[in-house]
């Protein structure tokens, strides 16, 4: 069996030995066989799952309650409008979180006794805000601050909800950045300093670029999580995707709008994840040794 893609004779007149050709043919056969088996096995499992779930007595009721296509289309505009709030909150908060998180991480990794108060502040901050339940922070800021009735402060729910997200998530992201900064080998700093770079330049041109690249995947984790947690500010009265779905569900006790919201969230996150992976691979960001050679 000859593979038409493979020239029997290469440009320089070399042709694989009979043994090598047999090897190649065997490998090709093995590949095809594995593919076929994997395909059949997948189909069998899927059929079993579909038939299994489809034959349960409650399935018709579940299908009309959760997977009613017409109801889904009907709810889509309202849920999508709610999702738009999630997206706006997420974008604004993400920018602020990166700024605050990075600042905290840098404060915490400053060296020298004179910076002790700053290090202590950063450590205390991350300790407190990582332990506090996000919902509590949202309630405290969202209902507590407006209750003070201070002049000049906004009292829109979305602003205080966003502030709570920024405060809490900054502490997570600060720890991620700190891990990245501390993972840069001391020899890098030493080399940069011996080349005459100042502390600030070392941080700016040598340490941070490497640190940020290394923590890209966990950072993305935090932002996907932020996207979903942005819905928590709905407790302050604003309408996000999940709250919009809840309102739709209350009309006729059909849960399909929730499923629609779920699909929208997934559809929003997957491209972001793939894009980050792609950029990271292209830039050779992964791997401590500077990526694949």
């Amino acid at each position, binding site marked *: 069996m000859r593979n038409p893609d493979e020239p029997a004779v290469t440009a320089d007149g070399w042709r694989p030995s009979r043994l090598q050709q047999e090897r190649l043919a065997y490998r090709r056969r093995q590949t095809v066989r594995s593919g076929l088996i994997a395909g059949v096995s997948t189909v069998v499992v899927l059929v079993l799952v579909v038939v299994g779930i489809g034959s349960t007595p409650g399935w018709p009721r579940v299908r009309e*309650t959760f997977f009613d296509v017409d109801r889904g289309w009907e709810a889509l505009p309202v849920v999508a409008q709610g999702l738009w709030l999630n997206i706006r909150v997420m974008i604004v908060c993400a920018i602020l979180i990166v700024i605050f998180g990075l600042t905290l991480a840098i404060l915490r990794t400053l060296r020298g006794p004179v910076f002790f108060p700053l290090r202590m502040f950063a450590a205390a901050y991350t300790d407190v805000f990582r332990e506090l339940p996000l919902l509590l922070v949202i309630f405290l800021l969202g209902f507590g601050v407006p209750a003070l009735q201070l002049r000049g402060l906004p009292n829109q729910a979305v602003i205080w909800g966003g502030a709570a997200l920024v405060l809490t998530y900054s502490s997570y992201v600060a720890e991620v950045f700190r891990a990245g900064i501390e993972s840069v080998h001391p020899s890098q700093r030493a080399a940069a300093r011996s080349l005459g770079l100042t502390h600030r330049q070392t941080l700016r041109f040598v340490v941070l670029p490497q640190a940020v690249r290394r923590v890209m995947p966990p950072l993305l984790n935090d932002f996907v999580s932020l996207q979903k947690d942005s819905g928590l500010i709905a407790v302050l009265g604003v309408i996000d995707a999940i709250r919009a779905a809840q*309102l739709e569900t209350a*009309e006729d006790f059909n849960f399909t709008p929730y499923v629609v919201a779920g699909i929208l969230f997934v559809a929003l996150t997957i491209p972001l994840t793939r894009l980050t992976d792609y950029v990271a691979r292209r830039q050779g960001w992964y791997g401590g040794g500077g990526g694949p050679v």
Partner: protein
Amino acid sequence: MNPRTAVAVLAAALVVGITACAPEDESSGAAPTPSSADACSKDKLALKTPGTFTAGTDKPAYEPWFSGDDPTNGKGFESAVTYAVAAKLGFGKDQVKWQTVQFNAAFAPGPKKFDVDVNQISISEERRKAVDFSTGYYDVDQAVITTAGSKIAQARSIGDLADAKLGAQVGTTSYTVLRDVVKPKQTPGVFDTNDLAVQALKNKQLDGIVVDLPTGFYMVNAQLDDGQIVGQLPGGGETEQFGFVLEKGSALTPCVSQAVDALKNDGTLAKLRQEHLTTETASGRELTR
């Protein structure tokens, strides 16, 4: 384990697992209409637990529908009505058991753990696709409440509310009325509970709340220092009613409906309304369209 055995085991596990998890099919025939009173006699009722009338409601259970977050005390309108219905069906006070049922769980698919759920749930044709309702035990009016000195305190018509920031509880018909009848220019605030809406009103994050009238009176009288009822909202067509929620196709539905109707006809419901709900109406302050 070689691949062939693995496949066989996996397939077997799937089949066994799925069939083992499959519950007995519930008989979901049409509910029989009781031809006579004795079809609803106590020993013939299709109950979750024989000899016990199981009623569900959410926790916390709110005033003035319940009193002191305790549905078992018979104080509070819905608690009293539930005991009255149970009595009509032949259950003494000690044979009524209460279950905590979250609002969402009251209409989730699948078997229910209650015979009836009573939670200020409004009857609607759309909702009937998912659950059974008894006949209505209370006619609901929606009202707008606010605090003294707010920009809608003097509102006389629905048009006067157009620019206000209004709130309502999620999943309620109050929200539906707010959206479809008031049609405010600003997106309404939607809260998990009425208590949170009241908090937002106190914080001046809201100008007003749309809520059913008895709850509105309770808020104004007990929860707000300077609360006031702006006025009642005209309904969107037919009268809105609260009803008992039962499992879809429950054989108990006609019997509960019969009991509710009997209580309506003999004046018990009216008596309980006077006893437990502020009977003053805001009809003098009906907001015009």
